[in-house]
């Protein structure tokens, strides 16, 4: 030992348990902050990636501007890249076709390809100078074309355009759904062919991507002012700007506020955990500091000792916290990539979150140093007499006696131990309460998720074969045949009879009759409000739909001629919703296929839905399309389903990840805090055992202390947590969807139970530890 500060590691070895518990607390706080901020960072990245995949990597679109204005915008120093973009037949309903297949055509500059990573050149290249076109992949096989081949595009005004294919690009979800082709050509060629066409986007949109470091909205304002543009000419990509923290949209501003509140809560929880731990650790070694003073250490030296000791704890606790937090983020990112590999292909499985690491280090280090200030001052003030008087053990000066009239003496002492020091009580209760506050505050994100992201429904189809004229023209044999295909997981068809005049409960009306098979009846049972599915599934009953201006109940009757003569049917069940919408004033009723056939005399399906196995390839889909024949409309929703799954997984994984981390930290923090508190009083407990306190009474005393912290923690946590939940719910969910706030009983019950369970768990180990220690050892413990 060369200097007095070398005593720090020696002291840490001597007080191994206390040192370990303090390190554990710092580790937990850093882990919490790193994991939460790291996850939030990764979630933002994944959302940004989704936004770019869905809508492109542009920030502002200018409409109806001149070439000169576009050139001036492109020369703006903050503009990173820009491109003209025009499209005709976007909705695939204007009559542009390739070999009879609906075709959407877009014209853009080469830079546009970089702005839309979802549209990737698979083969060949974009013809920036000439009149060549890129064709979507789905057309390659179906039209049997290769690079350099010519294709003929038919326009609604009767023109036939001969276009040379220079390459192929990926399909989009929208084109797959519409079963349409897409063509991409350069702006010059596009305008030469389509500038006089009716489509509003034909030649007038200019996409701009700004440097992410500039304040985009301010730059846009200056562009508007200089070029005399109106608000109607400027379209921001709100989602992407919002995710970049560059939006002034009220929704995004409210989300920023929510994020800020949550960030402050997480940071405060971390600070309180560390402060509480350090306060407890230093307090129990006051006599040791008194000894240092007695031996000649100045107050400044003692304060420096405490600060350096705190930093010594950080040396291992902070890196471990950062590593654990980062590891958790990696696990979640890997899960995300595994769950939706195509959608999150660009997501780094082992990404490092600078924000998470920085916040972890800063909050860990700064809090430790700040939290060490108070104990350092306190330690420095310890009188040298304390070391020699043998009377320097009280954790804090006691001002009020325990109430032995209300409680048993052991219980009263436990309660008093908890409340003796206001500061310790405040820190412990706050630390407990913050677990609840964080949980309830973050719980709001589940409601936000359910409202903002629609998960993929179990009945969502990958492929749909739709009767071209919306009649029951698809032969049932096709469904049976497709069901035998090994790549097909499930086939379920529906027959529709639209706009049938009927008498419903004695009143005239119009009905749409839809048939379900066993799969669909199974899914519908989840939304059954009254009655049973069975009456419709196995009998000739009907299922009615709740709402839509009418209220049908079990027993309601429908009398109509569906094609085989007038018949009366009875409603056997009522559903809250179904995947279909009817025309205004038309009521939907659902029956079995057998009932439908009996009522209408029709045998074929209007729609056949298919769910595919995960290993289904494009070639398999092509084969199914061929089987469907030309008299049907084919819709491929695999890509949009994958996007829906990706969006839901991304959000759900992180929201539940946040909640799990908070719950885990709550358990560890409570167990560790109680253990530290008990350690601080070991000597006192020893004396009590010497004068006759039994193990059972000792346990009851520790339990009373833990219960006091928990009770007040739960009360404060629930009150403030519900307030935080209400506030965040109001500015996110209520403000956007008008849904009124409700008390989240399930979350509340769960976290309260968890805190209570953790406190109960926390009592056992330290009580048993004291019981195992010899009384003499306990009395002499420091």
């Amino acid at each position: 030992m060369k200097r007095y500060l070398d005593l720090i590691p020696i002291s840490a070895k001597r007080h191994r348990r206390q040192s370990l518990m303090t390190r554990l607390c710092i580790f937990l706080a850093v882990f919490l902050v790193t994991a939460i901020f790291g996850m939030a960072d990764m979630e933002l990245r994944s959302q940004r990636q989704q936004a770019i995949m869905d809508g492109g990597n542009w920030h502002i679109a200018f409409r109806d501007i001149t070439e000169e204005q576009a050139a001036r915008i492109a020369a703006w120093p903050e503009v990173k890249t820009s491109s003209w973009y025009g499209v005709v037949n976007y909705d695939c309903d204007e009559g542009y076709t390739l070999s009879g297949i609906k075709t959407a055509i877009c014209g853009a500059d080469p830079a546009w390809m970089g702005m839309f990573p979802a549209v990737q050149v698979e083969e060949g290249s974009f013809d920036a100078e000439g009149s060549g076109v890129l064709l979507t992949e789905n057309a390659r096989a179906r039209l049997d074309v290769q690079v350099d081949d010519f294709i003929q595009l038919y326009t609604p005004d009767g023109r036939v355009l001969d276009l040379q294919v220079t390459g192929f690009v990926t399909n989009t979800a929208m084109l797959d759904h519409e079963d349409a082709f897409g063509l991409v050509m350069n702006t010059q060629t596009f305008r030469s062919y389509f500038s006089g066409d009716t489509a509003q986007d034909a030649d007038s949109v200019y996409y701009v991507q700004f440097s992410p470091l500039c304040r985009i909205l301010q730059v846009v304002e200056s562009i508007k002012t200089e070029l005399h543009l109106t608000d109607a000419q400027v379209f921001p990509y709100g989602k992407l700007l919002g995710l970049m923290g560059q939006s002034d949209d009220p929704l995004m501003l409210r989300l920023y506020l929510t994020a800020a509140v949550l960030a402050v809560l997480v940071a405060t929880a971390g600070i309180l955990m560390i402060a509480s731990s350090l306060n407890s650790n230093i307090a129990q070694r006051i006599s040791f500091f008194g000894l240092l003073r007695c031996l000649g250490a100045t107050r400044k030296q003692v304060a420096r000792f405490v600060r350096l000791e705190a930093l010594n704890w950080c040396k291992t606790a902070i890196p471990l916290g950062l590593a654990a937090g980062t590891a958790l983020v990696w696990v979640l990112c890997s899960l995300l990539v595994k769950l939706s590999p195509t959608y999150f292909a660009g997501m780094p499985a082992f990404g490092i979150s600078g924000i998470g690491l920085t916040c972890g280090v800063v909050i860990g280090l700064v809090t430790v140093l700040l939290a060490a200030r108070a104990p350092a001052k306190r330690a420095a003030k310890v009188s040298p007499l304390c070391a020699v008087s043998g009377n320097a053990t009280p954790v804090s000066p006691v001002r009020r006696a325990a109430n032995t009239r209300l409680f048993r003496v052991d219980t009263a002492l436990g309660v008093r131990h908890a409340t003796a020091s206001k500061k310790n009580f405040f820190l412990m209760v706050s630390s407990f309460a913050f677990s609840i506050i964080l949980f309830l505050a973050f719980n709001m994100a589940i409601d936000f998720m359910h409202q903002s992201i629609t998960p993929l429904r179990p009945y969502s189809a990958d492929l749909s074969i739709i009767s071209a004229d919306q009649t029951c023209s698809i032969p049932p044999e096709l469904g049976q045949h497709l069901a035998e295909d090994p790549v097909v997981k499930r086939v379920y068809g529906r027959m529709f009879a639209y706009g049938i005049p009927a008498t419903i409960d004695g009143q005239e009306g119009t009905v749409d009759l839809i048939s379900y098979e066993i799969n669909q009846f199974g899914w519908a049972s989840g939304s059954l409000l009254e009655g049973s599915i069975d009456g419709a599934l196995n009998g000739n009953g009907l299922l009615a739909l709740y709402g839509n201006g009418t209220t049908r109940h079990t027993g309601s009757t429908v009398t109509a001629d569906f094609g085989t003569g007038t018949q009366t049917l009875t409603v056997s069940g009522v559903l809250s919703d179904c995947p279909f919408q009817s025309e205004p004033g038309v009521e939907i009723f659902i029956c079995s296929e057998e009932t439908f056939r009996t009522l209408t005399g029709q045998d074929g399906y209007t729609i056949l839905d298919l769910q595919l196995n995960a290993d289904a390839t494009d070639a398999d889909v092509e084969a199914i399309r061929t089987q469907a024949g030309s008299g049907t409309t084919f819709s491929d929703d695999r890509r949009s389903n994958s996007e829906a799954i990706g969006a839901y997984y991304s959000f759900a994984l992180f929201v539940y990840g946040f909640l799990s981390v908070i719950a885990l930290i709550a358990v560890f923090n409570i167990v560790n805090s109680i253990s530290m508190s008990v350690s601080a009083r070991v000597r006192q407990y020893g004396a009590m055992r010497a004068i006759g306190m039994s193990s059972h009474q000792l346990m009851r005393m520790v339990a009373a202390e833990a219960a006091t912290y928990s009770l007040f923690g739960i009360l404060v946590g629930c009150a403030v947590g519900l307030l935080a939940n209400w506030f965040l719910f109001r500015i996110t969910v209520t403000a956007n969807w008008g849904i009124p706030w409700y008390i989240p009983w399930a979350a509340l019950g769960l976290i309260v139970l968890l805190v209570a369970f953790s406190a109960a768990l926390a009592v056992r180990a330290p009580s048993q530890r004291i019981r195992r220690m010899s009384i003499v050892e306990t009395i002499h413990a420091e």
Partner: protein
Amino acid sequence: MEVLRVENLCKVYGKGETRVEALKNVSFSMEKGEFAAVVGESGSGKSTLLHCIGGLEQPSSGHVYLDGRDLFALRENQRTIFRRQNIGFIFQSFQLVEELTVEQNIVFPLLLDGRKPDEARVEELLWILGLMERRHHLPSQLSGGQQQRVAIGRALIAKPMLVLADEPTGNLDSKNSQDVVELLHRASRHYRQTVLMITHNVHLTDAVDRVLQVSDGELRDWGGMQE
């Protein structure tokens, strides 16, 4: 009447090279109302002896009989209850419960035992100890001498057969030390309680009936007065 009997008490700490024999075949007995002092140098084993007699520490071998009952034949929980009913402890550093008042500290062993304190007895003790005016004070509001008097009150409240005092005057000045010894003497005479006190201070042995010396773990009975 014999209250305490110690038979062949041995206590060994450590193993091999670190093995220390703190007590070597210590045997002695004490009569009801007897006041004895244990003297010896630091590390001689006198505190270990007291801890073993009080049932705080398990001896390596030997027996401690209190009122005929073998202390270490009892199970841990039974021994705890037996201790709080029959043995009073006084420590050098007082070991009062900081969160309890003077009166609450004194009745603490009774409360642990689930007994209702006898008001008259409490009043009497407070009066004898000179703490009537301080009964509602917290330990932090008392002087060292007063705190030790509270500790004596706590040791006496349950009317234990045996009072064990581990250097009860170690933290006190000579006046307070004298007071403490007088109180212990009074306990042995007035309440007929057996008192065994460890002390470094040979002047305090004037008041005791018997002096026992512990040296290198061995006990020597000096009888009436240490010369």
